[in-house]
């Protein structure tokens, strides 16, 4: 009998608290009343644990859980404002984190779509003499690396473009009308080194990059679909490019991209190895290689350094101090984007944490308001567990809402980003909702639910609810302290982010408003590449084509002036060389920018002529070589002297230096936006014969009409020539500013989110405080204070937190201003106006966020407030 009772008493602890007492009574009564023998009692008692467990289990049945959910929904539905604030905050935090994670995952973590991508490296040249940190390789050097290294299974190259990118050569796809397409020129073993094979046909085989054997083309999947209607049997067929017949040998899989996604076709970088071996200047190749197994990047670096030292000894003229750099290929692609992405990721993670803290704050404030309701439920027999479960259910509903809305926001944001960022960001084609992103979202949702849900559990569990009820819900001060600290941090964060946003926006405005030095309105440009097959003979006829095109355009109605050059200001396009000035040996080897222009180009652009004359059509190959220098060059190297008549060169060192006579000085053109002009030279296109130029026209007619005129004039001269990228120059300037525009948009969004979080935080704390202090307010009112006095008191007390946050945020932005150095244009890193604006906005928002809940004081009836106890 005693053992039986012990079993029952022990099992009673399993039974839910609200029915435990009765349960124990029933079982003990049965044992006392019905058991003749000890054995029988013992056998009877053995059923008690099972019964106890079944009762406990019943509590977690779906029926009760869904009842919890329903109840939570009903409770929340009555407070739409609270729900919007709480789940909206969560949605913002979650959405931002998810969006940045999607981007970061695609760009940073997803391995490159090549075989064993970890073994692929990029190789570049380094030379302290010219401040080269990641320069292109000279063909001779690349060949030496290929032949003398002991660490690579293969070494391939492609033609270099601007920055870290490959050159997307413009080719003419013959047809009616002819069309310009983008080609990447690669060595024959390029695909083999990457370890990618064609989805149809084959890639280049050895020797197909020798001139004469090189008319082979590999198509991108996109080009095959858009231009050949995804026809079967194109392999082995012809493709007319640049007036010659090429053979299609393969089509790459749709998943294959390299460098940039826009490549239409890959063609061999035709190179006579015997000749290229001696070309150790200029530098125009980008090099990729595959490491042998077990070889580290450090070892590869050491090995190539050895080769470079040998080359320096062999070719002191071209390879002086020429060193080599080696790095992972994925780093090469995303390197510059890596740091900002991690920064953003850290930033949004912080935002998410703050959002969770905010919602927890709101929940605390709300439960303080509901003490009475909880006490009634408790008095009616609801167990603490039951109350906690109900509260958790509410948190769960909030978190679920927040997650759904956040996921939608993130999807929209990622779409927007992919649509706008490709030109600026590496690997955008790999951004999307990846399974890993979904997993991350689920994990985040779980974390958020737990973080938000833990609050009510702690409240019900830690503090004895009944004691809290007796107090009339005057909450503990430590919790209030934590809430205030969170709000102060939020305010500080908002100040810093808003200041950053304001500075970015101001810098952008300064950049847009910068004086270009020439009137940009009315300028229209287009690119033309003349095929060597028809224009490249001896003598070449490139320049004469552009001269006659400009002439015929000048005759056209509405066209004021026309010219052509190898590039445009700001939007890119100049060559660089080492400067030599006759009679000034001290400046030898300084970097110089140069550009070939036809007659009429400088006039069309609208640069001022300061001395001498501009380039004329009479500056032909048989005439003396001429150069027009910019003002900065004249000032830097001919300080006070007359530059006109002096001689300079920029294609040395070579045996026969091509000295050019300076015939004029023109005003500076902005070479890169936001940077000062550097020495620059304009040479005569007729004396250079470059095949690919940008046509520039000034007219007061609408751009569309001008483009139509351009097409007509070109067709008059050559029907088979396509016009590439025709459009107003102002539009190109607009595109150049895209990264800055993106920065403004992103920083504004972050600033707005931070501001909203701070507002919700202030609101939550004040609302909680007002609810908890209803009694105190009642006493004050009863003692004769006016509602307005009390309201002012509440606001004043809570604005203290805001002041602290403002101060901390101000100091933080001041200290962090170093980070912005170099990213801003036209304003100081410590921009007082931006900081002031941010602080002003925050003060207004904080006061508003204080006022709304504080106004509840006005509704407190002192009699009711006091009677409530």
């Amino acid at each position, binding site marked *: 009998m005693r053992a039986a009772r012990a079993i029952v008493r022990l099992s009673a602890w399993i039974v839910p608290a609200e029915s435990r007492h009765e349960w124990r009574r*029933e079982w003990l*009564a049965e044992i006392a009343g*019905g058991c003749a023998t000890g054995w029988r009692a013992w056998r009877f008692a053995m059923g008690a644990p099972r019964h106890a467990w079944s009762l406990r289990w*019943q509590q977690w049945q779906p029926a009760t859980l869904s009842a919890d959910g329903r109840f939570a929904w009903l409770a929340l539905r009555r407070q739409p404002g609270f729900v919007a604030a709480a789940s909206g905050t969560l949605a913002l935090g979650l959405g931002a984190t998810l969006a940045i994670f999607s981007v970061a995952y695609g760009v940073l973590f997803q391995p490159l779509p090549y075989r064993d991508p970890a073994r692929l490296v990029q190789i570049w040249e380094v030379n302290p003499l010219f401040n080269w940190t990641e320069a292109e390789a000279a063909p001779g050097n690349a060949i030496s690396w290929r032949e003398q290294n002991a660490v690579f299974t293969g070494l391939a190259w492609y033609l270099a473009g601007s920055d870290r990118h490959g050159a997307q050569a413009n080719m003419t796809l013959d047809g009616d009308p002819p069309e310009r397409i983008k080609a990447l020129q690669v060595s024959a073993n390029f695909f083999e080194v990457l370890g990618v094979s064609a989805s149809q046909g084959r890639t280049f085989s050895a020797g197909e990059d020798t001139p004469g054997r090189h008319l082979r083309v590999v198509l991108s999947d996109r080009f095959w679909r858009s231009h050949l209607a995804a026809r079967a049997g194109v392999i082995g067929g012809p493709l007319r490019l640049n007036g010659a017949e090429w053979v299609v040998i393969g089509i790459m899989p749709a998943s294959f991209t390299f460098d940039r996604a826009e490549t239409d076709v890959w063609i061999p970088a035709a190179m006579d190895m015997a000749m290229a071996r001696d070309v150790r200047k200029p530098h125009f190749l980008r090099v990729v290689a595959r490491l042998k197994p077990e070889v580290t990047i450090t070892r590869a670096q050491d090995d190539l350094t050895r080769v470079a030292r040998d080359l320096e000894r062999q070719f002191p003229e071209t390879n002086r101090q020429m060193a080599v750099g080696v790095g992972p290929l994925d780093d090469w692609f995303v390197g510059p984007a890596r740091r900002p992405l991690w920064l953003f990721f850290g930033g949004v993670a912080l935002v998410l944490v703050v959002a969770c803290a905010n919602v927890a704050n709101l929940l605390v404030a709300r439960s303080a308001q509901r003490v009475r309701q909880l006490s009634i439920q408790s008095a009616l027999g609801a167990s603490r567990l039951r109350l906690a479960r109900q509260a958790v259910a509410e948190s769960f509903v909030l978190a679920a809402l927040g997650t759904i809305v956040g996921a939608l926001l993130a999807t929209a944001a990622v779409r927007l980003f992919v649509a706008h960022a490709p030109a600026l960001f590496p690997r955008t084609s790999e951004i999307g909702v990846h399974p890993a992103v979904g997993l991350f979202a689920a994990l985040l949702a779980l974390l958020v639910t737990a973080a938000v849900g833990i609050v009510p559990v702690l409240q019900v569990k830690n503090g004895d609810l009944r004691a809290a009820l007796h107090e009339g819900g005057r909450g503990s001060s430590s919790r209030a302290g934590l809430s205030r600290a969170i709000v102060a941090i939020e305010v500080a964060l908002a100040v810093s982010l808003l200041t950053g946003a304001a500075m970015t926006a101001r810098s952008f405005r300064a950049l847009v408003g910068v004086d270009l030095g020439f009137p940009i309105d009315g300028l229209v440009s287009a690119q033309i590449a003349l095929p060597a097959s028809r224009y490249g003979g001896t003598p070449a006829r490139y320049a004469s084509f552009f001269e006659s095109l400009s002439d015929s355009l000048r005759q056209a109605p509405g066209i004021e002036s026309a010219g052509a050059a190898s590039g445009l200001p700001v939007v890119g396009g100049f060559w660089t060389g080492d400067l030599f000035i006759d009679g000034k040996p001290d400046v030898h080897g300084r970097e110089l920018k140069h550009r070939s222009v036809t007659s009429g180009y400088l006039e069309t652009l609208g640069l001022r002529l300061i001395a001498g004359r501009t380039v004329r059509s009479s500056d032909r190959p048989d005439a003396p070589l001429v150069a027009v220098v910019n003002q900065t060059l004249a000032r830097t190297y001919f300080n006070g002297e007359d530059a006109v008549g002096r001689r300079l060169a920029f294609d040395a060192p070579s045996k026969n230096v091509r000295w050019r006579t300076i015939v004029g000085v023109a005003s500076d053109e902005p070479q890169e936006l936001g940077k000062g002009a550097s020495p620059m030279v304009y040479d005569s296109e007729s004396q250079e014969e470059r095949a690919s130029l940008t046509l520039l026209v000034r007219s007061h007619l609408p751009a569309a009409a001008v483009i139509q005129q351009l097409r007509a004039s070109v067709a008059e001269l050559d029907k088979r020539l396509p016009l590439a990228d025709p459009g107003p120059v102002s539009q190109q300037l607009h595109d150049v500013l895209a990264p800055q525009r993106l920065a403004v948009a992103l920083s504004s969004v972050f600033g707005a989110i931070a501001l909203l979080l701070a507002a919700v935080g202030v609101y939550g704390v004040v609302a909680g405080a007002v609810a908890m202090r209803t009694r105190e307010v009642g006493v004050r009112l009863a003692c004769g204070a006016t509602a307005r006095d009390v309201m002012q008191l509440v606001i004043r007390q809570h604005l203290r937190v805001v002041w602290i946050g403002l101060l901390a945020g101000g100091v933080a932005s001041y200290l962090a201003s170093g980070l912005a150095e170099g990213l801003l244009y036209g304003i100081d890193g410590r921009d007082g106006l931006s900081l002031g604006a941010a602080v002003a906005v925050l003060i207004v928002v904080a006061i508003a966020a204080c006022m709304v809940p504080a106004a509840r004081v006005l509704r407190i009836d002192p009699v009711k407030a006091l009677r409530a106890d």
Partner: protein
Amino acid sequence: MSRRTGWAAVRVLRAVAQGARYGFDIIDVTGLPSGTVYPALSRHERDGYVTSSWEDLVKAHRDQRPPRRYYRITVQGKRALDDALAELGIEPASVLRPSRARAK
């Protein structure tokens, strides 16, 4: 009985319908162990098939034992029992008659 209920639960309900009023009584009638009978009773009570009340204190005191918890079947419970038995192919009336007879 809308939810799937085991044969044991039906037997427990039938025992209550037939007049067994407390734990040991039901165990004796059905021959089921306490670990089956009590969870079934709790479920029936939750579903509204049986109700329970505490035995009169005076009467229990007279028998020198603590008051027992008595179970009684509800109208809803009777209907559920009929349905369940019909489903099992047992004539409901034959089972219910004795309980009615006892009630008289």
